[in-house]
């Protein structure tokens, strides 16, 4: 056996590519991902490493930290769910109907992306503060938004909306309208068509979009800190806790909280992927 044969055996048979350069591009890919993603993450874990388990527990079990986790996860979850409903609605309207100003409205969806988060935070705070336009109206009803957990939910809903809309739009556009027509001729009313035909087809994309929105909300900092008021144990989010610890030179403790957050995100990603896979198995019958 010649050396060339051995090399050929090692290489997996794959489709002939028109553009050459797998080795080079793969090299850059690995290097880049390492520099930008893997090494910083590893650094976080490393900086928390070596701390005894008891310290881990005491840091994370501190009431202030626990409360911040509860708020961050809870508010992000609510924001993701709210956006799952309204994002679906917006994506549907923008894709299915044609009306004057559709493109403008479509561009508006990207605003939370494009806007510096601090701007969003300040805007929302002035709006919802007890003396603000909306806050003034809500106050007599006994609803306080700014400087409460509700304010956190509002800010998180604002910044995570585009994720749901932009994930759903192409899927809705690709949805075969003959499916609805078929269901219609088979006797199903509009609600039933939505529930039994359209919604199941959109579900995978809706889960992906909502999960993206949740992840984004979980890590959001800029827009929240203005409207939240940052009252310890009431309206303080995890990123702020990390920030506070850093400012007090408690680097290791900050790292511990950060690692916990990292694990939470990983768990989230894992769950979403698992759910996707299960749905695909069921819907597309792939074995």
């Amino acid at each position, binding site marked *: 056996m010649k050396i060339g044969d051995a090399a050929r055996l090692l290489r997996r048979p794959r489709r002939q590519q028109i553009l050459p350069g797998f080795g080079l591009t793969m090299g850059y890919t690995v290097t880049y991902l390492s520099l930008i993603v893997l090494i910083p993450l590893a650094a976080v874990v490393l900086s928390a490493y070596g701390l005894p388990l008891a310290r881990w527990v005491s840091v994370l079990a501190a009431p202030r930290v626990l409360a911040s986790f509860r708020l961050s996860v809870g508010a992000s979850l609510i924001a993701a769910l709210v956006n799952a409903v309204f994002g679906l609605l917006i994506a549907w309207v923008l894709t299915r109907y044609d009306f004057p100003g559709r493109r403008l409205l479509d561009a508006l969806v990207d605003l939370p992306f494009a806007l510096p988060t601090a701007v969003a935070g300040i805007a929302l705070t002035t709006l919802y503060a007890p003396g603000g336009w909306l806050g003034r109206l809500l106050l007599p009803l006994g609803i306080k938004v700014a400087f409460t957990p509700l304010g956190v939910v509002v800010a998180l809903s604002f910044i995570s909306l585009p994720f749901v809309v932009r994930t759903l739009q192409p899927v809705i556009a690709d949805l075969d309208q003959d499916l609805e*027509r078929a269901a219609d*001729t*088979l*006797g*199903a009313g509009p609600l039933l068509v939505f529930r039994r*035909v359209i919604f*199941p*087809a959109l579900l995978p994309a809706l889960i992906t979009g909502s999960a993206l929105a949740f992840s984004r909300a979980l890590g959001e900092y800029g827009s929240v800190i203005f409207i939240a008021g940052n009252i310890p144990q009431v309206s303080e989010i995890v990123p702020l806790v990390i920030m506070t610890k850093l400012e007090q030179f408690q680097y290791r403790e900050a790292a511990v909280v950060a690692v916990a957050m990292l694990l939470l995100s990983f768990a989230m990603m894992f769950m979403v992927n698992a759910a996707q896979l299960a749905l695909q198995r069921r819907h597309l*019958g792939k074995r």
Partner: protein
Amino acid sequence: MSIRIEQVTKLYQAIPVVNDVTVEIETGEFFVLLGPSGSGKSTLLRALAGLTHIDHGRMSLHGRDVTEMPARERGVGLVFQNYALFRHMTVADNIEFALRVRRLRAAERRRRRQELLQLVALEGYDERYPSQLSGGQQQRVAVARALAHEPAVLLLDEPFGALDAKIRVELRETVRAVQQRIGMTTILVTHDQEEAFALADRMGVMQMGRLLETGSPEELYRHPATRFVARFLGAANLFLGEVSDQGLRLGTAVLAPQRASVAATLGNEAVLLVRPEDIEIAARSGAPLSPPFAGGKVRALTFAGHQQYVSIELDELSGVETATADGTGVAVTVEALRSAAEQSAVALSVGTAVNLGVRRLHALPTPISSFRLLTTDVAQSAALEASPLLTQLLRSMQARVTRPRASKAHPERLDAGICVLPLEANTVAAIGAAVAHGARRLLCVPPLAALPARMLIYAGDEMRSSDLLALVSSAMRHLPVPTTAVTVQRAEASRSEVVEAQRRLLDTRADLRGAHGLDLRGERFMGDLRSWLREVAAQPEPVLIVLGLPAAPERLAEALKGELAPLFSPESRAAVLFAVEAQP
């Protein structure tokens, strides 16, 4: 009557994509709607299913008017080209969908599902997902799903379009067998004539929104009324022939037609259809068994399995003229199809001289066999030929233009085909002269006329003549515009005159439907013919008016100068199709 479609019109940006279609389909009948893409056949089917609203007309299923009914209440089963199965549901759930909607009990659903799966030969596939099935199997599930709620009619929208040729034929047979077993009234839409022949009890051919013709596959293949249908259903040789006392003259040969043809009474010129398999090829030394009509030379031979296509260039001496636009100027070419037996009887190679016989021929009942430009002015005839109306008619009729021959020795026969003239003040005399020389049909186009947006038929006393109706039907079949029959009534008309006008309108519609299967709308104008013409000719929207003309010279001159005068005014944008009354 299971399905009744009456005057159904669907407009898309003011252009009718389905144009006054009227058709009735018997219970248990398999009806195929055939047509090229964009002919409106799918739109008509979806309108019947309730998926698109229509702008005019009525539809009923089993005597129940469904025009205003939403799709889910109509009780139709619809099968799509791309199957449209619910991909997140199993085969069982797909089929049971309509039953679940109707809240049937599980046991009942299961029983019905088993029955349907057996019907489409997919027993045991209940728990599969659509993605685990082949295209043919998916379409069978779609058929079963469409039948689950025991629909009144089954509608199939190009159901085999996405499948391989072999599976297509297989599934075709399944669908036909299922349809016959349960006796379901079915409409299938396709652009494939072979599919239509294989499935149809009766078929209809659509083009540009019009239902051109309906009939059994054999009827339409053998005896089509239009050049379009003749060519759409298979290879066709179309010649210009002549009706004489002895029979049909094709070139120098005189042939007896297979059956009395409407065309024989219409004029002296006729379009003759000869299918390639009806051409007999004999060696130059021998004579064909069937009536001979021309000699020629083999130009090309094409292998087609057990058959052979032969392309033959006719001798110029044969005098045969083609009726279609393509290939004018060069020698006339005939396409023939030979069976294996014929191939072994007479050996052919390119260049072989042959004699041709014709086994069977059919004269199309269209009065518009050809267009004859009645002007010797070069610029004028060029302008006429470039006019949008004539261009459209030539294209959709696949007809050709002939020019008057210059020689005085051979006086031009004007009673053949349709004469085309410019419509101007100074052509009044030319129209009179043409009629005096025997012209029976005239198309008069004003200079700079746009393509008509509407066609108006003047339902006068002479409306019911079969000649005028044939002309109207020909024009309707080839212009994608809304068509209206108009009666004109004096404001102070007596009761009997009103009744008479109304009856004329209804009779016109009934006659047109009876003789040509076409439908039109009716309208009444208060005033006289002259004021009506003045109104429609001057309006910005261009129209085509169909009118009868008296043949007697003095009455004709009187009409042209009197009530028809508005047509010749410089403001007029109306093109006119005149039918001259038959001389008693």
